[in-house]
């Protein structure tokens, strides 16, 4: 069971301002935050740093979110890390497909507040890992 304090969060998001704002919000809450700008960077960073939770955007250059998540799930450690999707996408079909395959746990709806996201992160982190 991981504690909220000093938990490591990885944000994979190509929009710099968005990423920074989320990162700021999370650091204010005491989290250690890492940022990656695309799926490829995100995959490398995740496997190297082994964060406690990943916030993942879907539409990114070089490698998109779903691809990164599927690849991450092939790794022994990667299979269990909680992933929360941040997306503006309304392509729910693709997403529900991915949900079905257990690639990620939550979908944060497109119209969200920073406070909502932080609450979700805390909630997800407090869940025991076996629930994957």
């Amino acid at each position: 069971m991981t504690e909220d304090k000093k938990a490591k969060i990885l944000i994979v998001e190509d929009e710099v301002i968005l990423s920074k704002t989320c990162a700021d919000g999370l650091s204010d809450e005491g989290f250690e935050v890492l940022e990656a700008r695309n799926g490829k960077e995100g995959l490398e960073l995740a496997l190297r740093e082994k964060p406690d939770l990943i916030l993942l955007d879907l539409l990114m250059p070089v490698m998109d979110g779903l691809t990164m998540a599927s690849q991450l799930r092939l790794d022994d450690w990667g299979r269990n890390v909680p992933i929360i999707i941040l997306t503006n996408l309304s392509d729910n079909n693709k997403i529900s497909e991915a949900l079905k395959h257990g690639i990620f746990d939550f979908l944060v709806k497109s119209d969200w507040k920073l406070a909502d996201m932080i609450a979700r992160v805390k909630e997800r982190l407090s869940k025991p890992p076996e629930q994957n």
Partner: protein
Amino acid sequence: MKLKVPETFYKLLFDNMIDGLACCQMILDKQGQPVDFIYVKTNKSFEKMIGLKGAAGKKATELTPKITESNSELFEIFSQVSLTGESKRIETYIKPLLSWFSISAFSPKKGFFVIILEDITSRKKTEKNLENEKAAARNVLEDLSTEKTKVEIAKAKEEAILLSIGNGLIATNETGKVILINKIAEKLLDKKSREVVGENFSEVAPMEDEKGVPIRTEEHPINKALSADKIITVATISHDYYCVRKNKTRFPVAIIATPVILGRKVIGAIGVFQDVTKEREVDRLKSEFISLASHQLKTPPTIIKLLAERLLGNKIGELTKGQREYIGDISLANQRMIDLVNALLDMSRIELGAFELRTTKKDVCEVIRSIIDESRSIIDQKHLRLRIAPLGKKVELMLDETLFRTIINSLITNAITYTPAGGEIEVTCRMVDKGQKIGGNDIVETSFVVIISDTGYGIPQSQQDKVFNRFFRADNAREKNANGTGLGLYIVKSILDRSNGLIWFSSRENKGSMFYVAIPLTGMRAKAGSQEFVDG
């Protein structure tokens, strides 16, 4: 040589024979040319035939002047006969006597001739009738022949049309055996018509889903058409079907199958299909465009929203009252933009036809309950009372959950937005049978109906007909809430129009509104214009 037959016999014969007989003598002029003749002796029949008595000894010009006039050729013939001794026979119509005669003439001695008359009027009549009948029969035969040719031409034309229509066509008999495939079908399936006649349709046009799993025979649109009992059209709209060619390669296919009904029986089926590789590609591009547009359009406002949130949370230093107010206003304006973009994207999806109904069996009441749950906090914040009148039993329908959620969410949001604090919102679920009336509307098929009512501002009578129009907002709504897009109800109605559902409402200004949504028991189904498609 003297004949042994007594003269009395000849007299008897002469007097009783049926044919008319006249012995005549030619009268010649000074030049020796025949000008007249005398009836020397005539029999009873002759006199009867020409209708004159006491002909003996009379001249032709005296006795039968009319005949001499009307049938001058006879005089010629008699002259010939009497002069040359050659016998002649003709058949002629003697107008003054209104009869047909067969006239034989021979010459017993030069200058003399004998006429034998036979009335052949009735024979002629019979002959004429026969001729007429023959002509009539010939006409009928000709007509039949013409009609046959016409039918053959029509048939050939029809076949030519069928064979050359721009889509693949496959026709089967009532047991599903193929009787015809056209050129395009031959090309698409890579099979020749003569190869496939008599084969089962599922072998001639095998179909599989996107994963490569063959479609079961019962699921094949042609089979569905064959087992229908009325004219329906089975179309593969919301399935990604593929048709497999002879060489095992496949192409994405759209197929429309209809039964052929004669009298009341299904005597076969026709499947019209086409390779929709290009269309699927275009659809994919449209969806991709909308996804991309969606992402790109929503990202900047999302960023602004989060930045404003942090500022307003005093995370970047304490704000003055004025600063707080301004940033608050930025937030509101930004939210309007987000709402508008969302609505426009929904609308584009619908209008561009990148609208695909993906239905699964769902417990309707469960879905509605979960949507209500999402709004509970806002309902509480506004101090509104919420009443739910559930159905009491489980009802499962084929629903496109996403779209259904959009519909119910939109209506509940409206109820919340346009009802002042202290008001009430009620959500009722009902099953309504075909033929019953609800909310002033007649229900044509048994449906699940959800009613969302509020005690809010209502819609002014004069503007009620515009409520489903794009960008329309009623005056009182505009007044109470500056932020609406005017697209919510338009989108809800567009979805329902395209999925076989219904929406209607009743409303009184300052009293409240009641919105009704009906989904038939057969579920949300694709509907293109007025044609009903049974989803195959």
